């Protein structure tokens, strides 16, 4: 048995032989055998050797055949050689694709790089004479690769990210989308596993589109840029967008798990909507997600708002839904900052009716009564901003015309913000918060006594939590810490309150 080092040396020698002399082309079979070896380093060396050899063959066009292989009798030796090489080439490609599923990440990466190299070179130097206006792209190879990458069992994210680095090339992007579509079509909705979907999503969300709408698509991987072969479909951005839309629609049909759902929704606004041929196709998906409630609703909000504001989606219940999203749980979900940021944006228009804004103000103030300190501070700042934008709402804090009321006229159970009678109410909640235990909240709430004239930047409050508030408090070094003046009698002795409820 040879040692690994010897084998690798052997592989290198054979590669050299094979490249130097046509006659020693048979060593390719040995190399293929080595690539099935158990030892990872041997496999890696063999893969490298094969990639090197076939890259050379592709460039020198040794495998080139004028047309489809003629019958054996008419073959020249040259043709036979080319034919044989082509056979070896397909075997090699198969083995590379197979290696994509390897457990060793290094080999996976090598295989991916190899396949991409083959795709590039084969596209530039086709094995057969291309048809007149056909785009020479080794699509079958790509598709095999994609179907291997979109695995149902293992996480291929690192490889897919690697692949997406080359999606800046327009042709590769185009055919990748085609392959993905085929892959999705092949798998029925029921059979799409979470892993498969996550792999597809990873590929989809990392596609790189040119930022400029008018840009000419001529950044091709397979064609040198000087040969201007115009392929109407590949080089048209419109066509590419169509395909992109189709893939996404097919993808969104599948049953998404909550985590995937959230991931999709967070990516929609930046990675998807700008590149769809018609973003309104997402409206159904988004409205459905919005109706689910909870965190998913929060996330769908942004996409929906983009559709409404930029693409003229008519969604009359938007503010009603937004109103219903303000619930006590909102302070305890992960997306709190995002939600309040978006809500601030949605309510930033000064053309909103006062009754609507007043309802929001009341609702948010109610929430702040049960919120943690950081949330309460955010609420107060939010409400103050609303007052600045909508001076009409200041009746909530300054009402001179009416006498005392027996109870708050505001109806907090009413789902429709138009019917809450918020404009008849007063902001007693803020008055209460002025007595909040947290000095920060109390100071913020005291601002309603003299309304500020300029909006405050919410960014400082959006992400803050109790931990940061404590840090702030600790930083405020104050000398002369006041102490209790009286000597205590014991731990529970100083005040009678504790003794009523607990004993030591």
């Amino acid at each position: 048995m040879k040692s690994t080092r010897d084998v690798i040396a052997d592989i290198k020698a054979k590669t050299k032989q094979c490249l130097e002399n046509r006659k020693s082309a048979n060593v390719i079979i040995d190399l293929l055998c080595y690539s099935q070896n158990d030892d990872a380093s041997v496999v890696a060396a063999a893969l490298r050797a094969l990639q090197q050899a076939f890259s050379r063959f592709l460039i020198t066009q040794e495998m080139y055949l004028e047309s489809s292989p003629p019958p054996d009798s008419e073959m020249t030796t040259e043709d036979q050689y080319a034919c044989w090489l082509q056979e070896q080439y397909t075997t090699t490609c198969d083995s590379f694709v197979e290696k994509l599923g390897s457990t060793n990440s290094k080999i996976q990466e090598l295989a991916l790089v190899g396949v991409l190299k083959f795709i590039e070179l084969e596209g530039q130097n086709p094995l057969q004479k291309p048809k007149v206006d056909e785009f020479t792209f080794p699509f079958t190879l790509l598709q095999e690769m994609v179907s291997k990458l979109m695995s149902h069992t293992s996480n291929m994210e690192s490889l897919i990210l690697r692949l997406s680095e080359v999606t800046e090339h327009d042709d590769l992007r185009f055919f990748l989308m085609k392959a993905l579509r085929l892959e999705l079509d092949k798998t029925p909705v029921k059979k799409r596993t979470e892993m498969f979907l996550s792999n597809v999503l990873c590929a989809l969300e990392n596609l790189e589109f040119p930022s400029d709408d008018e840009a000419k698509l001529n950044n091709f991987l397979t064609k040198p840029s000087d040969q201007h072969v115009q392929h109407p479909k590949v080089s048209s951005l419109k066509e590419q967008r169509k395909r992109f839309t189709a893939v996404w629609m097919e993808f969104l049909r599948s049953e998404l798990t909550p985590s995937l759902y959230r991931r999709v929704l967070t990516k929609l606004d930046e990675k998807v909507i700008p590149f769809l041929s018609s973003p309104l196709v997402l409206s159904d998906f988004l409205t459905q997600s919005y109706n689910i409630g909870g965190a998913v609703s929060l996330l769908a909000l942004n996409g929906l708002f983009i559709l409404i504001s930029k693409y003229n989606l008519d969604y009359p219940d938007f503010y009603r839904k937004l109103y219903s999203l303000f619930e006590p749980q909102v302070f305890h979900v992960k997306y709190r900052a995002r939600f309040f940021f978006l809500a601030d944006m949605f309510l930033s228009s000064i053309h909103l009716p006062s009754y609507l804004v007043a309802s929001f103000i009341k609702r948010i103030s109610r929430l702040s009564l049960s919120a943690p300190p950081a949330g309460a501070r955010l609420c107060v700042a939010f409400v103050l901003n609303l007052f600045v934008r909508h001076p009409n709402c200041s009746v909530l804090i300054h009402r001179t015309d009416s006498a005392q009321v027996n109870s708050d006229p505001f109806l907090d159970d009413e789902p429709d913000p138009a019917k809450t009678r918020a404009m008849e109410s007063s902001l007693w909640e803020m008055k209460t918060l002025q007595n909040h235990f947290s000095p920060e909240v109390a100071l913020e709430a005291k601002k309603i006594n003299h309304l500020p004239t300029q909006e405050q930047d919410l960014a400082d409050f959006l992400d803050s939590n109790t931990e940061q508030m404590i840090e702030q408090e600790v930083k405020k070094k104050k000398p002369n810490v006041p102490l209790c003046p009286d000597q205590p009698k014991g731990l529970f002795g100083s005040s009678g309150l504790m003794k009523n409820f607990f004993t030591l």
Partner: protein
Amino acid sequence: MGKKNKKQLADKVRASKVKEKERKPNPFELKINRQKHVVLGRNQNIRGQVGKPGQSRSKAMKRRAKTLLVELKESGKSNSFKDQRLGEKNPSLSADDKAIQRFALERKTQSQRKGRLEEEGEEEQLTHYGQSLADIEKFEDPQDSDPDEDGNISGKMVAQEHFGGFLTRRTEEPGSEKKSWKEKMADLISQSKKEKYERQTEKDDIAKKTQELDEEWKSVHQLLFAKKKSDQPDSKDLRKADDYDISVRKLQFEIKGKPSNRLKSEEEIAKEEAERLKKLEADRKRRMMGESEPSEKGPTHISADSLEDSFDPTDSRKKKFHVMFKDGHLLEKPQKQGKKKQQEQTIKQTVCLFLLLCCLASPADYESLVSLLSGRSMEEQLTVVERLVACHHPSIAEGNKQKLELLFSLLLQYVMEAVVQEKPLVELLDGLTPMLHRLLRYNPDAGSNAVLQFLLDRYDEFQQICQRRGGRGKYMGLDTLLLLKLVHVFFPTSDFRHPVVTPAFYFMADMLGQTPVQNERDVAAGLYLCTVCLEYISLSSRYVPEVINFLHGVLFLAADKDPSKLEKVFPPFKPVGNHIDLLKLKGSIDQVPVLNVTKTLATGVEKQDLDTDEFRISSISTCVHLLQEFSHLYSKLPATPQVFAPVLNMLKKLPTSLYPQGVKESVDMLVATLEKDATRPLTPLTVEKKRPQPLKMFEPRVEEVFDGKKKRKGSRELLEKQRLQHKVKREFKGALREIRKDSCFLAKQQLQDTLEKDNERKRKLSRLYADLSTQEGEFKALKRMKDKS
């Protein structure tokens, strides 16, 4: 004669007329700038009020003719003629005079040249005011600056003799005849010499006499000085001899009777105490409102003595005893003698300990403290600590303050660890609390820092747990819970902002708000924290949302739930889950035991111990009572109905039929209170009216002294710059005007030149024509004559 006179008169008149003409200019030649307003106090002859354009124009023309025209004429020439003949420029000299002058000059230069040639070879002597410099430079016998001695004659002589003495006519001495001028001069010289000599002798005499006097004085002066010196030792000897004097002096310097404080009566003491308390309360209220201190003062120092005063002597644990020794044996107080033998032994032990500790250093690190305290009974430990503190009172030695600081943090650590043991030593903490407080007072800043650090460490731990469990926290161990209570004992929790209390508050709120309630211990810990919160806010009645949320949640756990409908609950509670019926009673019960901290919160407590109806009913009862307290405290807040509405809703769902009578009654009472609060009338909010801003007043600027000039404002440099800029502008304009006039003058001159040249040529031409025509005429005449002839 008459004719002559007539002529003179006519001349006079004419002359005067001419004069008048000269004096009075033609008003048509004047240009008067009319003044718009006559300004009082201003100089009447202002420059530029009256201009004489004709005169100034002709002046300017003349000036140009002298300068510019000359230049123009010489413009094409490379050299110029300069007339330097003597007297040529003086128009008053006649040609003869000029010639004479020139001749004289000629002769003079000639003679000078001759003289110089003769003297050549001799060295020239340098002089100064006619004296040879070589003489002066010797500097011998410097001349006295006295004006009388410079050889001049005296003033009297000058007055009498010079210029004939003017009007000072001397009465001629009858015996003397008239002297000739020569004689007079000889007299004068001799006289002055005599005077000089006299002055010299006088001066010498004075100098001599001064010297003599000096010598005499020296001898006398020595005598005087010697006497003075010999005086002093005599008096000293005198004083030493007398003891009485010494004592008198001593008494003089001794401090005389000082007024001491009068013993205060009991009422006065009570009054002072009341005032002290009043001041403390006012301070506390000020801090509660979040106002800053009126003036920066140091911490009100409370001496250790006053601490001792407030020390409770009735507390049996800290009973003091006097230690007396006689012949090396311990003497006990008579009242102790009748006690049990065991107690005597402990006292003996403690005394030995005390003696030991007197020479023992305070523990430098945690291990030494543990070794000092471990293995002793609790009372002994307390005594040890007390003695340690007493031994290291800051007034005893320097550096004790730092030692006590360290002791404080070590003790705190010690008790915290004692509390989390299998069998928690809560009593130890309870007993040590006064001691810790006393230690804290020695150095409030460092002590509170130590407490804060403990709190922050615990909070970090809590945060880590939260992160590990995806945002859900856990009720911390008994040590943290008791530390939070300890904060209330040490610090005034009603402050608006306090370096220790505020973080503690946040910590509690976070714990209550983040931790899902999953078992009985969670309920107990939450209720405990709510109680601590209640204590914190008992004076300031601040709003703590988390407490209300938690108490609402506890009620939810105990309530009868409608399985078909989801209840509205606040996080961290969830409307569905395994634990939503945690506090639902299994059967009815009569007893309501009070919750015990150790038995419910310590780490070793088993779940089964708490899974009883007793615990549940105690929790519910505690919760209801707490709600009562909170509703009482918050009754003044305007949003109370909204805050307590969910609670009220939940209270109505409690299965009160199973509860003991007392609990049932308190639930009913709470419901009644909350319902009453809910219908309380609310006053709509109004913003305080702003005081109207008065208009800005502009006061006239009054100048005390007005000198007729406007004063420009600004610094000296700015004013100077402005002045110069103005000047530059004016000069620039003036220069432009001059240039314009110059070019105008030149153009005029050139035009004149060309006209003259043209005229000249015309004239010449016409003369030529005339000549030619006469010639022609003569020629024709001759021809005619020839023809005729």
